[in-house]
Structure formats: structure tokens, C-alpha cells
């Protein structure tokens, strides 16, 4: 379908289709959004954060009326404000944070999952985005008040558990998960929002504490702040316009987090071209190795070799793991950073493997080596991220909103960012 469309028409079609995932998988009752389109899927709070951020896009593109978008947004924020916040194992959240997965109907914790710091941060990024966008009266005023109240309620200080940097999460059954983050990843947004809190902040030094674990590497001919899975170079960036602003680490290296994502993309493309494990399909226009769905744990004897495949996991480049599974959406999500590479790869995929984009929506995983294995249905994170990244490429709407958001601006400054639009 892509060959005859102009870039803009193609993007319009794919962005709209991605957004329809959200409208088709959102509970009208509480605004929660399903993690995946599979039957019985719970809500992922991170997907709600992406969905909230997409509502302004939908208004600007006339997919929703402003009134509809505001009503849906308000319903969502009211759910999070009124849902149970306590230490009990079936609450919705605790200390202003939320459990990673919630029942779509009751809104209570499922799967004994963790109270998730990074997913709460992604949710709050969405909460702050709508708080900035809806600047009118009535419902919109309520949105702004709830946005502020929800953000202020998050107790980032508690999440340190007495340490300098934050834990990944907490469970009522035994307390804090005893491992933190090592190395660069998608968590920058956690620190930016955490240090900015007027009520329960992280100390400004906590961000520097985390960046001590960073590694600046020359990989496959490119200098990069390394993180293997591609999504880690996208998630914070969906909200924050990193062009031209630098923290202490990036000042030291003469780069920024926007340029860094460009380098990461270049490494993924180079890895695709080298294709060290000899996977089917890989090339300079067939890449996008990241966290996502996979074929499941199985082995295949192929060309007298044993091939191993995995289920949902964080795949990465160049250290691996890599089982030949790419995320078909990932090339398009690179659009704001490396538009030419993103469009070339996306067009190649759509022309050679059209099955990876049923109903114009990219599946979460595809493995050409394993008999064309394709992830079933769609994942909300992928679709929400695509709506935002395509919009940032086309109009910069989300970046423009968050640049004006005092919380994000102050958070970046407290974390040591300077220059550019700051």
C-alpha cells in the first residue's frame, strides 16, 4: 500500500491507524487502555501515559472533538485520583505510584505485578502533557487541577528507599525490588520528573548518581551512550525535546540525547547490514531490535545449526540478545531523529513484508527466520509511541507542549541540563 502514497499521506494513514488502537482498546468506563489487543489483556499504566499524550494530537488532527478528548482525559485522571492508594496487595497504587498492570474494569492490581517507577513516570508524563494542552475552562480546568494533584502526590523521595538512586519498583508482599538501574536506558524521564517534584522530590544528585553507570562507547564505528534495545532511545524522547540541551555527561562528550538516538539508529542499521547471526531479512533497511514480543522459547535446527528463539524480552544491539526478531514499528518510531532511514526502512518493510502491518498497524514482533513468525494483535506501547513520534516529526506538537511545561523544564534544569531551548 505504501508505494503509491506520498510520505505525508503514508504517515497520515499509519498515524491514524495507530491512534485507532487506543480508541478501540480504551475502557469508556474509566479511561484505562489495554496493554495489548489480545482478549483479557489488562491495562498498562504506561500505555495510558502514551494515550493521554495522543489525545491532543487527535484533537489537532480532528480525529476527536476537543470536548470528547477533554471528557475522556478527565475521566482517566479522575479514575487515577480516586482509585485506591494503599499498602494492600490489590490496590491501584501506593504513595502516588501505580501498579504496572491494572484490571481493565475494576482498575485494581493484577498478576502480583510491581508498583512501577518507570511506568508511573510515563503515566505522569502523559498526565502533565494533557495538563498543559487543555487550557480552557470547565472540564479543562478540572484536568489541569487533577494533573497537578496527581503529579504532586507521587512520593519520589520514598522510592529511593534511603539510597541515592531509585529502585525499579516495590511490591506489597516484600517491599522494594532490590535491583536498580545500571547503564543508560529509558529512565531519564523518571529522574526529570522526580527531581522537579515540589512535594516529594528526588535529590538533584540522584540523576548524576545514575549517570555514573553510563558507558560512552564506540560501537560499529559510531560514538554512542550505549543502550542495547532501541526503545530506550525513544521513550523519554517522545516527550522531551532533547535537541541542543545537554546534561553534564553530554557536555563532557560533546553530544546530546537527540544526537545520541541518531547514533543508536545508525548502529542498528549497521548491525542489520552486517547481520552477524545470518538472520533472514536483516539489512540496512530491516532493523529495529528492541524489547518486545517474540516467538516464545523454542529451538530450530537450521543449516546444521541450532537457532534459539525467545518470548517477550529486551533484545539489543550489538551485544544481543538477538534471535532474528525485529519490532516492525521501531523503524518508523525513529522518524524524528533519522527521517530518511525511518521512511526507507518502513517502506521496505511494507512492500516486502506487508503482513507485519495488518489494518495499517504494525505488529509488535516479526521473525522472518522462524517461518515468518508474527506477533498476534497489537501492543499499546508501540501504537502510542508511533502516534507521538510521527507527530513530533510532523509538527513537534508534544515537544512544544512539554517545553512549556514548568515541571519538565525545572526538572531538566535541576538534573543539570543547560543550553538550547532551556
Amino acid at each position, binding site marked *: 500500500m505504501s508505494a503509491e502514497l506520498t510520505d505525508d499521506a503514508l504517515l497520515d494513514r499509519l498515524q491514524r491507524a495507530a491512534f485507532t488502537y487506543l480508541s478501540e482498546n480504551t475502557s469508556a468506563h474509566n479511561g484505562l487502555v489495554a496493554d495489548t489487543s489480545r482478549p483479557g489483556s489488562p491495562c498498562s499504566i504506561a500505555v495510558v501515559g502514551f494515550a493521554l499524550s495522543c489525545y491532543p494530537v487527535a484533537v489537532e488532527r480532528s480525529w476527536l472533538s476537543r470536548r470528547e478528548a477533554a471528557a475522556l482525559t478527565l475521566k482517566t485522571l479522575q479514575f487515577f485520583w480516586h482509585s485506591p492508594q494503599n499498602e494492600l496487595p490489590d490496590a491501584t497504587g501506593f504513595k502516588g505510584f501505580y501498579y504496572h498492570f491494572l484490571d481493565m474494569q475494576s482498575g485494581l492490581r493484577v498478576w502480583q505485578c510491581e508498583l512501577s517507577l518507570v511506568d508511573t513516570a510515563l503515566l505522569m508524563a502523559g498526565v502533565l502533557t494533557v495538563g498543559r494542552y487543555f487550557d480552557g475552562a470547565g472540564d479543562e480546568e478540572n484536568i489541569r487541577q487533577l494533573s497537578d494533584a496527581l503529579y504532586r502526590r507521587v512520593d519520589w523521595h520514598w522510592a529511593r528507599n534511603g539510597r541515592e538512586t531509585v529502585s525499579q519498583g516495590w511490591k506489597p508482599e516484600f517491599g522494594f525490588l532490590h535491583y536498580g538501574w545500571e547503564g543508560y536506558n529509558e529512565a531519564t524521564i523518571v529522574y526529570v520528573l522526580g527531581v522537579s517534584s515540589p512535594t516529594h522530590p528526588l535529590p538533584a544528585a540522584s540523576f548524576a548518581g545514575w549517570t555514573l553507570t*553510563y558507558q560512552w562507547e564506540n560501537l560499529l564505528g559510531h560514538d554512542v551512550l550505549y543502550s542495547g534495545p532501541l526503545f530506550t532511545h525513544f521513550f523519554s524522547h517522545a516527550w522531551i525535546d532533547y535537541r541542543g540541551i545537554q546534561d553534564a555527561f553530554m557536555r*563532557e562528550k560533546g553530544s546530546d540525547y537527540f544526537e545520541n538516538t541518531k547514533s543508536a539508529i545508525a548502529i542498528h542499521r549497521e548491525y542489520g547490514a552486517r547481520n552477524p547471526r545470518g538472520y533472514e531479512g536483516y539489512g540496512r533497511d530491516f532493523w529495529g531490535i528492541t524489547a518486545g514480543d517474540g516467538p516464545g522459547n523454542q529451538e530450530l535446527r537450521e543449516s546444521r545449526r541450532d537457532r534459539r528463539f525467545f518470548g517477550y524480552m529486551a533484545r539489543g544491539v550489538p551485544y544481543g540478545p538477538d534471535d532474528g526478531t525485529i519490532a516492525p514499528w521501531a523503524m518508523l518510531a525513529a522518524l524524528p531523529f533519522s527521517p530518511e532511514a525511518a521512511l526507507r526502512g518502513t517502506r521496505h518493510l511494507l512492500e516486502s513484508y506487508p503482513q507485519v502491518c495488518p489494518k495499517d498497524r504494525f505488529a509488535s514482533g516479526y521473525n522472518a527466520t522462524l517461518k515468518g513468525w508474527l506477533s498476534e494483535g497489537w501492543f499499546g506501547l508501540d501504537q502510542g509511541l508511533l502516534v507521538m513520534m510521527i507527530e513530533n516529526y510532523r509538527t513537534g506538537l508534544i515537544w512544544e507542549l512539554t517545553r512549556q511545561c514548568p515541571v519538565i523544564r525545572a526538572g531538566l534544569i535541576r538534573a543539570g541540563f543547560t543550553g538550547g531551548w532551556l
Partner: protein
Amino acid sequence: MPHIAPAAQSDPSSREDFLRKVHPPGWQNPPPRSRYDLVIVGGGPAGLIAADFARRQGLSVALVERYRLGGNSLNSGSIPSKAIIRAARVLSSLRDDEEYGAAAFERPLTDFRAVMERTRRIRTRIAEYHSIERLQAGGIDVFFADARFAEAHVVIAGQTPLSFKKALIATGARPRSSDIPGLDLVGYLTSDSIFDLAELPKRFGVIGGGPLGCELAQAFCRLGSRVTIVQNEAKFLPDEEREAAELLSMSMSRDGVDTRLNTAVVGARMEGGAKWLDTVNDGIKCSIEVDEVLLSIGRVPNVETLALAAGGIGFDPAQGINVDDFLRTTNVDVYAAGDVCNRRQFANVAGSSGRLAVQNAFGARSERQHQEAIPWCTYCDPEIAHIGVHAREARERSIPVECYTVMMQDVDRAITDGVDDGFVKIYVKQGTDQIIGATIVATRASELINEMSVIMSAKIGMRRLSTMVHTYPSQSDAIRLAAVAFVNSRSDGAGK
């Protein structure tokens, strides 16, 4: 995966030969001299190298050993584990044979007794290099006895007082014992006892994901045990690079090791004739049924029985003997070396510190111990080797650091050899071409890292290294390629 064959016959003569070299039966301690230049307590790598170095300086030396010469390294560490790892690697390589053109054939069974006999033969052969006969021939008085300090310049070996000008404590360390409820009753192996196993355990539980735990988990899996390794941290080898540890995790999983990270063993019990380990991961309880358990959760220094206070020697029961940068203890005439005082508990560190301690005790000039220049390796497949600082340590010390990485999957010789898991990563002080460390993950990283040791000792920078011609194709060419990446990064501003 190989199966287990019926047991073969063992070879009793090998054990006698071994003991004759490391602690002869019926040994009589020599009459002591009135005073020794140097009394060494402990006959492991640090003590043996110190003794040899000292007697070559013309010093009178007494060596006191309570068990066997060779220390952990020979008896229960480096040597036997590497012999078993080699056997496991050979048997494992037969798994990939078809890719290399071998016609299909039935996989051989593992004869565990043969594996262990080979291990013992190797140990006996290597014991010869530090045998009691050689020490005696070198004029060293060897005392097999427990040692304790009586006063600042006297050590008692058994009942015999040994007076000294200088002393060296090199008593090493021993496996940390268990505080897991029930494990003592169930019974467990440590590095001290595992090499005496007569049968390959069908189900083997390993507690602890440090170097030894990982090495033996992988090796026993390759020999045919069903292995579960439990590590109470987010990664194996906590001191190593995250990417190195993750490659190892993948490699162990590929071999069939059941890897349990972030998991604590909270209890052990016997049930139905089997041993059960009760574990907790993020609040979720689980039980693992095994036939044998290896406890590998670190080592504690051997200090308690030495009456160190009587010698005026300060120590910490957990950290070992307090030494300064010159390996001198709080008693100015007593030095320490090896695992009893070093954070890095490796035989090569022990050996070099033993030599340095003697040099500092008797030489005109004292020299500091530079642990950063000492490489070490974990002998899994792929091997993980390191020298110098890690990127994180450098950043913690406010040293801006850049890493230049070459993936083994991009190295021609690694590709032709079919051993392309891993990488060479060189750490460079930003703004210079000075190499401050390296991590190598490769099938023979233990050999490749020695090139980095020479390069760093000779203070060769990345620019010069990039011009040093290596054989082609070779795996060590990855080191040169990392330096080429450094030069290219500056010439074309790649990635900026």
C-alpha cells in the same frame, strides 16, 4: 547433552604421587635454625613464589604449611577447575560437529571418573613444579604444622618456635560457610570438596553466581548434570561489565543451565531422599530438587588461628590482614600477601604480591602494589577477562572515559573458528590515547588479556597500538581493531 557412562576404575597411584609432592606421609619437620631471615606462613601461590624469590636472594627461609603445598590454586581452585572445564568444553564441542561437516554419529557418554582422574593427573604433574623436594633442594626449611604468632618476631609451628627477622603471612582464604537454614544438615560441597566427587550428580544446584559458581555450573552442565544456578543479584559476576555478565547468562542458558537471578536461597531440606533448596524471587517462592549442592558465595580470609594480636598484627575477620600499599602489616617486620589481604583473590595476584612483599621487606626501595595492572579471568565459555579500571570506576573517580569496542562477531578469525560470542572493549581516558583498562569476552580471553597487560605496562597508547601489525586472521587482531576505531573516531568524527 552428553549422558553419564558407567564408572571406570580409579588410579590410586596418582594420589600417592601427588601427596609425595605436596605433603609426604610421615613427614618429619626439620630442626629449626636459631633465626630465619624470612618465615613464611602458608604454602600457596603467594608463599611459594615468595619462598623461591627469597632463597634466590640468599635469604634463609622457613615455610610453614598446615595442609598441602600449592594452596587453593593447585588443590581446589585454578588447576582442577580448569582441567574439568577443558573436559566439559571438549564434550560440548561435539554438539556442534555437524555444522563443521562431521557426519551424524552417536554422542559419546561422559565417563566422570575419567574426567576426575585426568584432573588428578594434571594436578600431580603441576605439583612437581613446587614439590617439597624442590623446596628442600633450594635450602628452604618446610614445616607442616599449624602456625601462630607468639610475639612480634616469633612464630610457633606446631610446637616449634621459629624466630625471624621478617615474616610473610600468606594463609589464603577459604570458602565462606553457609548461613542458609538447613543447609548444614542437608550437606553441601564447596570448592574444597567438589573435586573429590566420585560420581557426576544428576541434578546439581549451585548457590552463588561469582566466578567459581558460574564456571562449575556451566562445566557440570556440559558434563551431563542438570544444573540450576541461583544468584541473589541482578546479574552474574557482579564485578564485571553488565554486557559481559549478560553474554555469560545467555551462554549458560544455551548450554542448558537453569539460571535464576535475583533469587535468594532461604532454606534447604531433605525430602524423599533428595535435597531441596527453597528460593524466593521478587516474593515468589519456589523449590529446586537436587542431588548435590555447591555453595560458592565468596571466600573469607584465614586469620583466626594465627594469634595475630600476639604478633602485633591488625586484621579484620571479614577483610583480612590490614596492610598498607607496600603490603606491610601493623607489625613493621611482618608482611602479608595473597588472598589473606587482597580484595582480588586470584592466584596471579597472590603470586605477584608474594614476590613484592619479599622485595619490600628486604630491598633497598619499597614499591607499591598496583592491582590495576593485574589481569584476571573467569573461565566460562566465553571467558571473561579484565585489566585496569572499569568505566564505572573511572567515572566514580571523575576520570572521563571512552570505550572502544570490537565485537568478536566482526573479527574474521572468530568467524572462521565459529567462536564469535564476545567483544574486546578498551577504556581510554578521554582527550588522550591513554589506555586505562580493558574487558575481553572471548573463547580465549585469558590469553588475549595478556596482550593488554603488556600494552598497559609498556604505556603504549591507542595511536601506536593501531599501527602494530598482528597476524591475520587472529582473534587478538580485535585489540588492534579497537585502536583503529579510536583513530577513525577522531579522523571522521563518527557518530558525532
